[in-house]
């Protein structure tokens, strides 16, 4: 094939995978700093800005040697990230050797253009992905990074950045130490627990700061005095204490990330302390911003802010000083909320034609009076037993725990789900976010009728996976219809459940949360004392290298960190080796610049 033919063929293949990049290469001008010439073997080599990227003698043999050099790192066919494309010899050789996913980073379009013009890269392009920008895309867990040294030397700043991002991605993939901070009580408490569990399921090391321990003491403040000012003052002092307790806990756990849920007792002062300690903080505000306004105060002090509402709220957050805000809808914990088989007794106890589980907000109190003629059970607290709804209220308005809630969702023919509002008498016409109950009923494969919300259609296919109502008349009509059509009810419930398991689990939300952090430049905190698998370190260093063989001596420990190595050196006898001295140098730099700031 001639030069032009290579180019057309290569571009065609690339276009199928990455049209945008193909167009960029097509538009890239030929650069005077790039010179392609024949090596002694006859294969082309290339020089860019005075740096020769491939052998002057035999680029193919050189590429084979490069792959051979990295052989031990490629054991088990991990995904590979290559820094530098050059003319692609080493990439081609690697693709021949491993079946793994290959991502190549190359910022120079002029070099890519030259490669496309001079070599048949069709096999390489079918197998690998090329990244030219600074943003590092998602790479499968357990990837290794291989450097094409001449390319790295040519663009050191770019590759240093990419390497740094890839290393952070590797750390995230290996698992972070995450402190999850829950509220003292309230609706975000179970969400906090689900998040902690989901993060553990994703392989992270989680410490859950369970502030519900303080609930009794905190609520007892109300019995101390009726003076509202004094109560507020005392509660503030209590929150200060709980907040400092979290900081003390961080001191020991040394998290890579603190993830707090709405109403978590964390003061601005504590958050500033965390920031100065370099511990990134994220906050999930699982509340209605129009009802709770403390977000204005805390938005600037968290590094990352997640909301269940979009639209104007994201702009308002930015104005309030939030630097990295993103929409993160609620979800369900499918380990907790699931379809279960109930016995006859339980079906009798928990079952009904229509039910509702939740607190008696004013809009629900008035709206549900319209359902009084159905077989309707209301579970939960804050209901008025003396109202017309009194006969529907179960257990005199006692709180219902999660386990029983799951049974109710399972046992009920039609679960009504009305989002709370303190400002509207029934359905909130401006309702946007979707509450946890929506996902939880669906996850239990329960059938629900839910009030219309503007975000709903993004999350469920309305009519197929979930059914919404507009007002009390609409709800009554639909209750009657679906009571008469049990098969349709079951079909919709099953589809809703599938959707939740596919798209709306807390594991997926936590992954999205971490992905967002990474995209926004998340860096591990300075004193992250992560221990690493010795076997992985040895592999990364190269078994035959001086560093690799030195690290291998720690194999019996399983995992090792710089502190362990330095302690081992300090307790040893005899003259220090150069490798040991370099570790001492690293330790002293860390003490001087990282720990002391």
């Amino acid at each position: 094939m001639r030069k032009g033919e290579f180019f057309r063929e290569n571009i065609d293949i690339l276009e199928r995978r990455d049209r945008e990049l193909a167009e960029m290469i097509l538009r890239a001008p030929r650069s005077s700093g790039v010179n392609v010439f024949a090596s002694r073997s006859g294969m082309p080599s290339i020089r860019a800005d005075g740096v020769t990227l491939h052998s002057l003698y035999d680029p193919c043999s050189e590429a084979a040697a490069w792959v051979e050099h990295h052989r031990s790192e490629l054991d088990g066919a991990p995904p590979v990230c290559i820094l530098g494309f050059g003319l692609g010899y080493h990439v081609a050789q690697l693709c021949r050797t491993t079946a793994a996913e290959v991502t190549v980073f190359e910022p120079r379009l002029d070099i890519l253009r030259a490669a496309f013009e001079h070599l048949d890269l069709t096999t390489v392009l079918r197998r690998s992905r090329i990244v030219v920008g600074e943003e590092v895309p998602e790479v499968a867990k357990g990837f290794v990074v291989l450097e094409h040294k001449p390319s790295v030397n040519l663009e050191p700043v770019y590759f240093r950045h990419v390497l740094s991002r890839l290393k952070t991605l590797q750390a995230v993939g290996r698992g972070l130490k995450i402190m999850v901070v829950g509220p003292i009580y309230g609706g975000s408490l179970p969400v906090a627990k689900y998040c902690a569990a989901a993060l553990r399921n994703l392989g992270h090391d989680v410490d859950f700061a369970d502030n519900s321990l303080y609930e009794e003491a905190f609520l007892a403040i109300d019995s101390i005095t009726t003076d509202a000012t004094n109560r507020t003052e005392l509660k503030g002092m209590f929150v200060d204490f709980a907040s400092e307790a979290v900081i003390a806990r961080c001191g020991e756990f040394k998290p890579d990330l603190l993830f707090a849920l709405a109403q978590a007792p964390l003061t601005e002062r504590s958050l500033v302390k965390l920031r100065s300690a370099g511990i990134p903080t994220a906050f999930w505000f699982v509340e209605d911003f129009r009802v709770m306004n403390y977000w204005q105060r805390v938005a600037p002090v968290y590094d990352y802010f997640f909301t269940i509402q979009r639209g104007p709220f994201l702009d308002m957050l930015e104005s309030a000083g939030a630097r990295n805000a993103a929409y993160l809808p609620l979800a369900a914990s499918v380990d907790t909320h699931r379809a279960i088989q109930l016995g006859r007794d339980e079906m009798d106890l928990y079952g009904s034609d229509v039910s509702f589980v939740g607190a008696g907000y004013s809009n629900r109190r008035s709206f549900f009076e319209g359902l009084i003629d159905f077989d309707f059970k209301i579970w939960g607290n804050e209901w008025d037993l003396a109202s017309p709804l009194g006969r529907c209220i179960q257990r005199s308005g006692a709180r219902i725990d999660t386990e029983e809630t799951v049974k109710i969702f399972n046992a009920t023919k039609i679960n009504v789900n009305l989002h709370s509002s303190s400002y509207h008498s029934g359905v909130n016409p401006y309702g946007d976010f979707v509450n946890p109950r929506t996902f939880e009923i669906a996850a239990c494969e329960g059938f629900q009728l839910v009030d219309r919300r503007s975000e709903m259609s993004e999350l469920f296919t309305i009519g197929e996976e979930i059914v919404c109502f507009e007002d009390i008349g609409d709800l009554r009509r639909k209750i009657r219809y679906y009571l008469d059509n049990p098969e349709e009810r079951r079909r919709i419930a099953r589809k809703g459940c599938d959707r939740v398991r596919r798209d709306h689990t807390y594991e997926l939300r936590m992954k999205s949360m971490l992905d967002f952090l990474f995209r926004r430049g998340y860096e591990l905190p300075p004193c992250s004392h992560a221990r690493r698998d010795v076997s992985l370190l040895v592999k990364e260093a190269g078994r035959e290298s001086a560093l690799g063989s030195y690290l291998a001596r720690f194999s019996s420990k399983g995992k090792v960190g710089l502190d362990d190595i330095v302690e081992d050196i300090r307790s040893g006898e005899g003259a220090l080796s150069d490798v040991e001295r370099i570790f001492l140098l690293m330790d002293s730099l860390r003490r001087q610049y990282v720990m002391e700031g």
Partner: protein
Amino acid sequence: MKEVLIVNLTRMGDLVQTTPVMAGLKEEHPGVRISLLANSAFSEICSHIPHIDRVFVFDIDEAVSFLRREDLVESFRYMAALLDEVNDTVYDLVINFTHSTSSAVLSSLIRTREVRGLTIDQQGFTIKRHPWIRYFFNVLPGRDINPFHLCDIYQKAGGISPGGRGLELSLPVHADDLAASMLAGEGVGDEDILVGLQLGASAEDKRWPVASFAALADRLSASSGARILLTGSAREADFGREFEGLSRVEVLNMIGRTDLSGLVALLKRCDLFISNDTGPLHIATAVGTKSINISLASVHFRETGPYGEGHYVVRAELPCCPCGFDSDCADTLCKRVITPANVAELAESLLLHGDLGAIEDSPLWENVQVYRSCFGEDGFIDYVPLISGRPLNKSLLFTEIYRQTWPCILDGERSWRADEAWCRLLERLSERYDLGPVDIPASIEEELLALKRLEGLLAGALSIVSIVAKEAGKDSPDFGLIKKLWEGVPPVDREIETVGLTLPALRPMSTIFRYDKEELEDEDVRLLSEKAGRIYGDLARHVSMIVRVLESAAAGLAERGVCTK
């Protein structure tokens, strides 16, 4: 000597202050290649430093970024790659002028025949190689009796005799044109008097108030018609804005608006530069611009004042000056004691006469002293108090005595005569101070007694060490005897330590003795005891020198009738 590597990972000012030792190395070892290992954050200045043949840049930020992520392998590789680059030759001499543990470990990894400065030994313990480096580390605990400037200590550690070499920086090409073009836009012509002010400093307590600078500018503008230039980095822009709000003069605010070449050119153009203790102060000195250093808080001008002939230091003369590095002063009296009127008076004289040899004491100068820098006959920089007749005190006396004795001890100089030393000392003291008010003989009585007691103890220790060396040199030494004999040594060490701790004027001797002993490392008992013998011998000699001078001082001052006893 063919290959020298200087390790200096500190700040811009410190880098400029290594220029005399580099110049000295080039002079005394023609053809020597000087390599510098510098912190990337301050590497820009390196291109302006003459005498450097090549620079290795240590990107500490990058190295630290790997450590932040606990990325052991990448971090190790970064260090190993840097060392590979630096170790492309075997050096004859590595001098580490950085005082951090990391620089000590780094220095121990460089292929060289000799290391001076902080390094680590085979077992990883930090050691201070070279007598003058050990002296340097003693300065911190004994600051107010240290007579030597950092540049002089550096030169001595480099094996160079200080002899009037000032700081040096190469000027950017067409520096004058560059400055002229920058100033022309601001309406400053060649004939205008230009006074530069550096408002910032590395720490708040070292910064003379902006309001004081503004008042100074107002007065200089009115009295001398001087145009005022503000220099500084972008981080110091707030000071510039504050200044503009306070001063009535039309100021040329170049804070954050110049690169290093521009700064160098502007400083060269200034007729006078007035600054806190900063990097630009050293740059101004290096390009030969007359400078006034306002020396505050923990800054001690004798260590880091402007190094060169004919610069000035204004300093508060208060019992707490200089304060300790770890002090956190809630009431920086020194900033208030030095008034705009003090600095303006000095600056006006300098603008008018070019130089100033003396200042007549008056209430204006209460609690303030002004020093003029010059090179002494001994080659070291000297700071001569311009307001003479202030009372001599014990610290000043010991500072002057140590200026004469330490070089003999640290350089191993044998020819020293107490009477000659005393004559020189008396001459300097009488020129600079009023010897009357303080009863010096009475004030040094305790030191004299302690030193005489040490003389006896050291003689004992020396004889033990020499017997041990002799026994250890035998074919089959009696180690029982050696052990028994050696039991007499630790009590002497404890006494030396006690003297140093209880009598601050004698602390440097005890501190350096301890450093010297920390250096002792040898498997062979005979060699070890011989080395120990040299350490005790040096201390004994120094003690006896001081005793003789103090005795002469006591007698001489009594003879002159200046003491009350």
